[in-house]
């Protein structure tokens, strides 16, 4: 791995972010809309009961960004190269797959942080909700765990893209939405029917959001759950990275890199 090549691609993704309105929307528009919707919903429900719904919903919105951006940025930045038939030049250059992915992952993380930096003060301003007041340590830990999980999902999408080409791009767009009901972002796992609860507990994010809720409600945090989230995310990350390497080699045999589809 060479740092200057990673930097070269970071520069490219920076240009992509600032010159394409969609890529800016990813960072600002959709997350802010989400914050508004869930913020006002929380406000309304809070008036009906005395549960601290608002913190729960807003905490969920702000932290889910890390899964969403980390996974989707990997997919979208790879798709951008498919769309402009640019894989040809990219992979005939000295770039290695590991450098390519590192730069995408780093850029995705920077973009998640950018969203965080927007949503955090906005939460304080609009709803007097300061996420860091819950527990800076847990927030940092959640960010880490959710990002790791997001990367694993992102690598999985990337693997599918290199294997099947851009015809599966619908998966890239929808996978975080499909996962979100099982992440128990806005409600506790206990609110899910038994079959869905099983799926939720098998996936890492639900454990993170359960811990967040425990802190908000002042109940004990399930540390084992967090450990599970870490080990499961790491295992998933390693497995999807391996799958990606295999898919990438497959794409060199089928000619996907040369033809772009």
């Amino acid at each position, binding site marked *: 791995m*060479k740092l*200057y*090549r990673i*930097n*070269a*691609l970071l*520069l*490219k993704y920076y*240009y*992509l972010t600032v*010159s*394409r309105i969609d890529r800016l929307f990813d960072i600002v528009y959709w997350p802010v809309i989400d914050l508004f919707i869930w913020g006002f919903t929380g406000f309304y429900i809070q008036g009906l009961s005395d549960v601290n719904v608002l913190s729960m919903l807003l905490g969920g919105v702000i932290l889910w960004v890390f899964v969403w951006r980390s996974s989707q940025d990997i997919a979208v930045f790879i798709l*951008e*190269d498919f*769309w*402009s*038939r*640019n894989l*040809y*030049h990219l*992979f*005939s*250059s*000295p*770039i290695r797959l590991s450098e390519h992915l590192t730069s995408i992952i780093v850029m995705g993380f920077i973009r998640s942080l950018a969203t965080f930096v927007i949503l955090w003060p906005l939460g304080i301003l609009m709803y007097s909700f300061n996420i860091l007041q819950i527990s800076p340590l847990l927030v940092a830990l959640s960010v880490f765990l959710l990002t790791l999980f997001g990367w694993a999902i992102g690598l999985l999408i990337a693997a599918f893209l290199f294997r099947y080409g851009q015809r599966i791009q619908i998966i890239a767009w929808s996978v975080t939405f499909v996962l979100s009901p099982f992440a128990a972002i806005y409600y506790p796992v206990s609110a899910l029917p038994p079959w869905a609860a099983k799926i939720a507990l098998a996936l890492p994010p639900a454990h993170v959001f359960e811990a967040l809720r425990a802190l908000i409600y002042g109940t004990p945090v399930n540390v084992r759950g967090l450990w599970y989230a870490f080990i499961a995310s790491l295992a998933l990350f390693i497995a999807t990275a391996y799958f990606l390497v295999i898919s990438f*080699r497959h794409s*060199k*045999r*089928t*000619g996907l*890199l*040369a033809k*772009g589809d």
Partner: protein
Amino acid sequence: MNYIEVRNLVKTFKERGKTLTAVDGISFSAKKGEIFGLLGPNGAGKSTTINILTGLLEKDSGTIKLLGFEPEKNWEYVKNHCNVATAYSWLSDVLTIRQNLKVYARLYGVKNHEQKINELLELFELKEIADRKVVRLSSGENTRTVLCKGLINDPKVLFLDECTVGLDPDIADKTRTLIKDYQKKNDCTILFTSHYMYEVEQLCDRIAFMSEGKIVRIDTSDNLKRMIKKRTVEIAVKKDVGALKNFLKTEGVDVWFGKGNNLRFEVTTEKDKMYKVISKIFHQGFMLSNLHIQGPTLDDIFIKISRKK
């Protein structure tokens, strides 16, 4: 020293259970400073060969050496000193020309890249539009942008796969001159494919003729042209076209009528016969107003080889 060396290269594709052999055991080599042409009909396997050499495709079997090294073993060195351009691909289309070149200059670890980029933009007459997004470029402008990228690292081995498609005659001519000048200055090796025969003739030192994944023949364009003995002669006379036609018939050559007083005839045997016929025409006292002799072109060779299967 051979900068490109290919031995028994094989590449197959599998599609719906069928196996297609795109490259069928080809071998060739190109020396340092040589421009080597790959010619052949559509689907012959030229691009596939180049894609394997640039590392975009994995070969089935055979060996490759670039700059004296097997690419897998000296990956970094080989990649840093090779580059490729083709009109059928684009750089990132939402980035400007300059932004793209900055990214690729960094990828190839180019020193002084601002200066290098400005030089290339100047050379390819792109300076004025350097800050335009690639998506807005005309196809000729895109082609030149891709060529700039191809030269960004001063490659020692350059792959040019139909890199002049879509250029207007003036720019195409300038581009060929640029390629030739660059090649002379840097003594680099170029593997060149094109369907424009005059271009191949003008640029390439040697040509490998591919057909159905195999190399049929490797030679210089002059030697290749010796495969065809035909000469075409075009004659215009001031009067007596009919008489000239009859006279040529008695000499046993095929004649076509052109427009007005023009005649075209083809001599398919030796050069000597052509000269004999022409001198006889003079002796008969015909008043010529134009005489044009045309030898075989690379197009003729191309057609002859591709149809002989």
